[in-house]
């Protein structure tokens, strides 16, 4: 891997590039929020960012720590109630893409943010579903971004908090009024997409300097690679500059300076 950017930066820039200008994007907190705002500050100035706190078309100067930082409201076109957000804007069909993170993901893109272990006697209790279960089904499509590891990429999630394509890849078949589901997963190692037939995740692009072996080592099942495996384009100098400035502004703000 080259030394003038980190794997985390590579992930964020690649995730940002997935968003097209003009898309309406329902943004999860953390990595998705970082990527979505980078997109807005670079190639997609008219991307519409929507946070579940009710802030419509928001343009924060710094990344929010929480999903409801004041910055999100102050820079929004308008702020609606949370019931309105979920009913009119998400379920109402106005979201092109839901951008999610997760604690665990499996080969059929199912997401687990509920717990590790057994529900009634959990080893680790995670925060829970939040907005994700309905973002993943009511948005037109879903992008997912998270760090690649055997802890996060498991063959079968312990709990399907949020539907990818179900335990057998057929979870969306025959369901009316449902979005396309996950169309890409972006990690610090690669980009994956569901196989058009089986819906199992397939690596379609490796980040510069990353090997197939790196991905296999970090994935909890025998991950497949596309025949026409691509190499993810590197971040541009401008993308890196904008991202670093954004993160620096953010750190200064949240440190209370």
């Amino acid at each position, binding site marked *: 891997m080259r030394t003038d950017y980190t794997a985390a930066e590579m992930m964020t820039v690649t995730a940002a590039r997935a968003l097209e200008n003009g898309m309406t994007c329902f943004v999860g*907190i*953390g990595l998705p929020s970082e990527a979505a705002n980078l997109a807005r500050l670079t190639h997609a100035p008219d991307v519409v960012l929507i946070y*579940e*706190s*009710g*802030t419509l078309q928001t343009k924060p100067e710094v990344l*929010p*720590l*929480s*999903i*409801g*930082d*004041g910055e*999100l*409201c*102050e820079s929004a076109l308008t*702020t609606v*109630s*949370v*019931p309105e*957000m*979920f*009913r009119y804007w*998400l*379920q109402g069909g106005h979201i092109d893409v839901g951008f999610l993170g997760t604690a665990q993901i499996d080969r059929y893109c*199912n997401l687990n943010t*509920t717990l590790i272990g057994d*529900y*009634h006697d*959990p*080893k*680790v*209790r*995670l*925060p*829970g*579903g*939040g*907005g*994700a*279960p*309905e973002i993943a*089904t*009511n948005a037109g499509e879903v992008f997912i971004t998270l760090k690649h590891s055997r802890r996060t990429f498991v063959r079968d999630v312990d*709990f*399907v*908090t*949020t*539907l990818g394509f*179900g335990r057998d890849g057929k*979870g*969306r078949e025959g*369901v*009316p*009024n*449902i979005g396309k589901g996950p169309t890409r997963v972006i990690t610090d190692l690669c980009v994956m997409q569901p196989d058009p037939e089986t819906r199992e995740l397939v690596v379609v692009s490796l980040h510069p300097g990353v090997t197939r072996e790196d991905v296999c080592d970090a994935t909890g099942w025998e991950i497949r690679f596309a025949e026409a495996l691509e190499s993810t384009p590197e971040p541009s100098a401008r993308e890196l500059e904008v991202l670093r400035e954004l993160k620096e502004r953010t750190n200064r*703000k*949240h*440190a*209370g300076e």
Partner: protein
Amino acid sequence: MAELLSLHDAVARYVEDGATVCMEGFTHLIPFAAGHEVIRQGKRELTLIRMTPDLVYDQLIGAGCVSKLIFSWGGNPGVGSLHRLRDAVEKGWPQRIELLEHSHAAMACAFEAGAAGLPLAVLRGYVGSDLPKVNDQIKFIDCPFTGERLAAVPSIRPDVSLVHAQKADRKGNVLVEGIVGVQKEAVLAARHSIVTVEEIVDDLDVEPNACVIPGWAISAIAVAEKGAYPSYAHGYYDRDNRFYKAWDAIARDRDAFTAWLDDNVHNAGGQS
């Protein structure tokens, strides 16, 4: 008609042991002062409802006030876990709590339905999720017009809701501004409600469609300056993100938590 009470008296009058209590505020305007008063008065066996439990519920759980939690996302936003919540769920300290877990969409709709006086909310939700397997309150109905299968959840009807807002006028009419969350719904859905405010003013001085809750729909108003801290009040003070980060270390350790609670809640006199 809203009565102007001290926070102590409002909590003493309306929050009973064993009650179903909702303290709302979506990141913004979280009623910390009211939550601390509930802790100070030693309320027990509460069923707490809240979309995002946040630090205030971590504190109530750690203080031993809670036997059941109805929620949809229980973390320290942008920081990590709620360690007091986890300790109660995973290790039963200071007591085991029962969880009833929803998605945000379902809870938001359940608040809406509660405010609307309905027994249920209907949504296009929980498709393919395991949550209906562990929450028997999630059912499915068939639309009588299209045949589509839709999720149904019981509406939320708390015994008492506690929310914080920017200001009230002398008749108890309350302005909520900024990220309004489900606060209006929480108040309207509840049998009783306590609204803490930063200040009482002569005139709310608002636009025609501002989010105003009339005094006759509220049980009690209590002044609690900085009553949302370390959450924030749009137009008054910012979120103390540093405290949210610092909470992680405090809450991780039972002793550190207990010491914090003594210093900042139990021995903090009236409104903290």
